[in-house]
């Protein structure tokens, strides 16, 4: 099979597209090998195991989506259109991120930069590797809907499953090409060192499109009805022009990836690394050093603060927080005027728990970073400093993710509610968020930014987030029904939460320091040393 696929016919076809067949196959084999050996996963797309697990999850999602159609049997075009859209949206979320990984941070290309490889050949190999994702996931989403069409359609016919699978695969393929073209356009318009930063914003597109698709569509539909009435010639021209325009966007975008890609690789990978960075000692770090444990605490605070801002891998892992922050802002905008002590339920009740979600996302992502190889410096640190370092990291997370946002909230809410209510709510929210921080500290499994990002984590993410959403719903319900009945009850619960947060944080900090030492191998090495000493 492999020999047939890589025969003279395929070679001629590739050559016609300006691709060097021999090097293309070499690169494909290399990427597959590296992905399967789990090297530089974050830059090469998902490995086979991760893809298989994701596929099973997508089979489940596809099955779930069928349930809606069982009560109202659709026509074949409606069912096909709906699942093409679902496939495009689901794959869009994954493929834009994968293409971002693969195309704007091609670390492996640095090893190959001096090899005689054409940009077109290299890009083609990368795209082929990415399309593996489509090969797994598009059929996975559509397997159950295609088979269940015999029961779902109002007029089923025997060859529908084949049409369904082919059409949705094509939708996935187009989504993949569009994702790649998007980054091609970025390379066309932005200088190489800026592309990585811009790509992070682009990766937000699927999340934002899912969040605001309804509003955008309602505005667009009303405009379309005015500008292009039913049956008008403009609508026909538009229908013809749209696919042509889309094809042109994809072709020119993908072509932009092929030209001098290998020469721009170094600039892409290092991003704005050559730029000078203003670095000054913050007053907050002085306080941390004085109160939380001297130079090690300052080290933890400053190190985490700087890398949280500058580490590309970390920042792109936290893209999910941005929609969360936007929704928190929207919630506050809509429900901020309602005093939580008025007895009415409003979005303000949810806000303290959104901090929990954001802290959870940071805690599970913070150990992964682009410059994970620099973690060797921690091996030289005396083991006694890790407790102080952990307090410094905690201090930074509390300051940046709890302290500063609450100060902003205080400044805004003071104009909307009575002062006492504002103060009490802010302290309550602070205590809830601090408790969450105390708990999620245990999830930080090692030194921050010291591990290579692993794409397979995303597979379990959906399940964890669904479980977390359920837990938060219960917490918000209990808070509304039991706590926000009187200011005294809120004050008492706040006191209890603060005390609990203190106890939990103390225990978690000790566990965090052990986790850092354990991940560096110090824990086991030192245990061995003690054992030897006793034995001697």
């Amino acid at each position, binding site marked *: 099979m492999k020999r047939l696929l890589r025969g003279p016919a395929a070679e001629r076809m590739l050559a016609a597209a300006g691709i060097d067949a*021999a*090097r293309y196959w*070499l690169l494909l084999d*290399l990427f597959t*090998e*590296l992905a399967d*050996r*789990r*090297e530089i996963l974050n830059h090469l797309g998902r490995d086979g195991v991760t893809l298989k697990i994701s596929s099973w999850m997508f089979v489940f999602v596809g099955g779930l989506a069928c349930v809606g159609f069982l009560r109202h049997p659709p026509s074949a075009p409606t069912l096909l259109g709906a699942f093409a859209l679902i496939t495009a949206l689901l794959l869009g979320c994954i493929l834009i991120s994968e293409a971002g990984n693969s195309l704007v941070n091609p670390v*492996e290309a*640095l*090893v*190959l*930069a*001096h*090899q*005689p*490889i*054409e940009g077109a050949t290299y890009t083609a190999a990368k795209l082929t590797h990415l399309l593996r994702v489509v090969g797994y996931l598009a059929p996975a989403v559509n397997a159950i809907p295609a088979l269940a069409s015999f029961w779902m359609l109002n007029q089923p016919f025997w060859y529908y499953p084949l049409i369904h699978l082919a059409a949705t695969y094509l939708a996935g393929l187009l989504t993949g090409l569009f994702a790649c073209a998007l980054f091609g356009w970025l390379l066309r318009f932005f*200088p190489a*060192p800026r592309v990585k930063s811009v790509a992070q914003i682009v990766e937000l597109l699927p999340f934002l499109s899912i969040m605001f698709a309804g509003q955008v569509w309602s505005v667009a539909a009303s405009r379309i009805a005015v500008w292009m009435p039913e049956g008008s010639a403009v609508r026909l021209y538009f229908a013809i022009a749209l696919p042509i325009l889309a094809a042109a966007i994809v072709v020119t975008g993908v072509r932009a990836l092929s030209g*001098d890609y*290998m*020469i721009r*690789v*170094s*600039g892409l990978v290092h991003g*704005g690394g*050559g*730029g000078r960075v203003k670095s000054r000692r913050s007053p907050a770090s002085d306080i941390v050093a004085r109160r939380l444990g001297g130079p090690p605490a300052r080290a933890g605070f400053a190190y985490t603060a700087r890398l949280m801002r500058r580490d590309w891998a970390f920042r792109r892992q936290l893209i999910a927080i941005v929609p969360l922050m936007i929704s928190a802002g929207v919630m506050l905008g809509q429900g901020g005027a309602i005093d939580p002590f008025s007895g009415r339920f409003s979005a303000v009740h949810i806000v303290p728990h959104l901090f929990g979600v954001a802290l959870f996302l940071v805690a599970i992502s913070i150990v992964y970073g682009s410059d994970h190889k620099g973690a060797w410096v921690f091996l030289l640190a005396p083991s006694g400093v890790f407790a102080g370092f952990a307090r410094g990291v905690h201090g930074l997370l509390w300051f940046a993710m709890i302290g500063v946002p609450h100060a902003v909230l205080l400044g805004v809410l003071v104009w909307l509610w009575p002062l006492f209510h504002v103060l009490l709510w802010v302290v309550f929210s602070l205590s809830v968020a601090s408790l969450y921080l105390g708990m999620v500290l245990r999830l930080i499994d090692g030194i921050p930014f010291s591990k290579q990002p692993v794409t397979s984590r995303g597979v379990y993410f959906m399940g964890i987030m669904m479980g977390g959403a359920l837990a938060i719903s219960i917490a918000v319900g209990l808070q509304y029904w039991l706590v926000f009945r009187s200011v005294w009850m809120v004050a008492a619960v706040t006191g209890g939460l603060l005390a609990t947060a203190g106890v939990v944080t103390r225990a978690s900090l000790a566990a965090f320091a052990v986790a850092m030492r354990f991940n560096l191998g110090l824990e086991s090495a030192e245990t061995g040393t003690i054992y030897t000493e006793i034995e001697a």
Partner: protein
Amino acid sequence: MRCGQVRKRRVVERFLEAETDVNFGHGESTGYNDAIVEFDQVVFSYGHVEVLHEISFRLERGQIVGLLGPNGAGKSTTIKIIAGIHAHRSGSVRVAGLPLPECAIDVKQRIGYVPEAAMLFETLTGQEFLELCGRFHGVEEDTLQARIAGILETFGLSSDRVLRLDAYSKGMRQKILIAAALLHNPDLILLDEPLSGLDVNAAILIKDLIAALAAEGKTILYSSHVLDVVEKICDRVLIIHQGRLIADGSAEGLKESTKQTTLEDVFRVLTNSANVDPGVGRIVSALRS
């Protein structure tokens, strides 16, 4: 024949064995004369920071040229431009008569490059990495296997060929990089700190290999901070300082013109680092404080 010459001959013989049917470039005539590298008024910038300012030089075939300069002077950048990894902003660069960056692929066929930082695919074995590099350069399979075996044996890595590269020491990784640069028998060899991490025997071997390859008509651009090695093996020395070429000549010629006795002294004088004592004093007093 003296002992050193015999050793050099053996190294080259082992390396070049079974080379007969290999196309070391594209086989086409490029029409270049004795100058294999022509660097003319080259300017290069990282973003808005200009790091090379109108540098010009030519490298002739069969020369061993040392490239010296303080940290951040632009040595590695110069080498990367010649290797087709970076594109210069203005001026012209030709390698083997081919303009860069337009003909980067053809140039890459003709050069061997040992990078300063040993970036490798860690999960590949030494053998797999070398096979990959050789195949990218289109070396015939039989020849490739013979060369890999010969080079690994010479470097004392035969028994480690099946180990993953993440298990290699720094010196072993450096040997693999050097081997990868030589596998396709390039016309121009760019070495950026090639002796970094190598033990004494391996360093002697590489120095002999460099001399022997130059005798075969290959050009070697050798960037290093180890000035006595440069002085011993290079026919000509280029010194770059703050992105400008400040000296170009033989080690003897530079010593004579600057009235210094060693290349290290020449370097100190030309790069204004003659007296390092105040700096040393500042560090020591800072440590005492």
